[in-house]
């Protein structure tokens, strides 16, 4: 691996690989990631069950915390960063996120409008008589 990085500084990285860093710093990287993930998870569970926060803000807070934690996992565990040697991995990730956003956002948007515009169930039953 080290010779591979020696050939050219601009060499790409496989997702999950870190460019030649010593063992100590790599373990430290995972520890920082673990600490951040535990912190975000604990906050998430705390916010979900507390009365100290304005109630309507709770779902938004949980989603924001979840997205932050996914970011922590991507950077510290999967080593997908925005460095020059990670361009292809990040481009693939961006496309994946686009599709995920379209699927989830689109489904919620459409189904919400369907529910709003649908005739109440008892009226449908009356029409079928």
């Amino acid at each position, binding site marked *: 691996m080290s010779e591979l990085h020696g050939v050219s500084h601009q060499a*790409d990285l496989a997702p999950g690989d870190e460019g030649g860093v010593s063992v100590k710093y790599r373990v430290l990287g995972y520890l920082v990631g673990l600490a951040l993930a535990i912190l975000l998870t604990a906050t998430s569970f705390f916010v979900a069950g507390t009365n100290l926060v304005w109630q309507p803000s709770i779902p938004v807070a949980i989603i924001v915390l979840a997205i932050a934690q996914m970011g922590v996992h991507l950077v510290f565990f999967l080593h997908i960063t925005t460095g020059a040697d990670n361009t292809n991995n990040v481009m693939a990730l961006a496309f994946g996120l686009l599709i995920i956003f379209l699927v989830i956002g689109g489904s919620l948007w459409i189904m919400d409008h369907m529910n709003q515009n649908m005739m109440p169930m008892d009226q449908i039953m009356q029409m079928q008589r």
Partner: protein
Amino acid sequence: MAAGALAHGHDADVIGLDAVHHGPAPKRIVTGFGFWIFLLSDMVMFSCFFAAYAVLLGQTAGGPSGAQLFNLGNVAIETGCLLLSSFACGMASIAAEERSHRWFQIAMAVTCVLGLAFLAIEFREFADLVARGAGPSRSAFLSAFFTLVGCHGLHVSAGILWLLTMMAQVFAKGFRADILRRLLCFALFWHALDIIWVAVFSVVYLLGSAV
């Protein structure tokens, strides 16, 4: 002719143009990138299940809702198991690159035990729900719940089989280049499962019991 092309390439190299190609990327990068694309497609598949769950969250057909069913204490323990096993898997990746057989097998064993603990808790939860008459056929909400969480559980089960295979392969064949590529893919898979679990406990359990 060939010599001319070679000399030309050499000149370009000396000048240091960015356009110079060093030939195909190493196999480790190609394999890792291909597996990364598979993982992203897997996440797209999960996003469909998440969309179904979000849409069907209120469709309980008069049956129990998430707030009545979910035990957040259990979910917190599951989350801890999976998070620590992801960390242990990271330690196994480092041990593999340092070519340390002992630490690799220890870290992989810890990863495996924590993954099995996660699966045991999840299986007990499912059995409990079915016993209380809240099985997947009770309502659209529960169908979506069992499909989404069960699909993640199946991924973890497959991951544990893969993990044991990798321990055996490293034990029998050592840290060969092809084994290390498989390890890279396994580590990506295991970390990606943890990312999906973050979405599961946030959306399914925390938001699901708030509704």
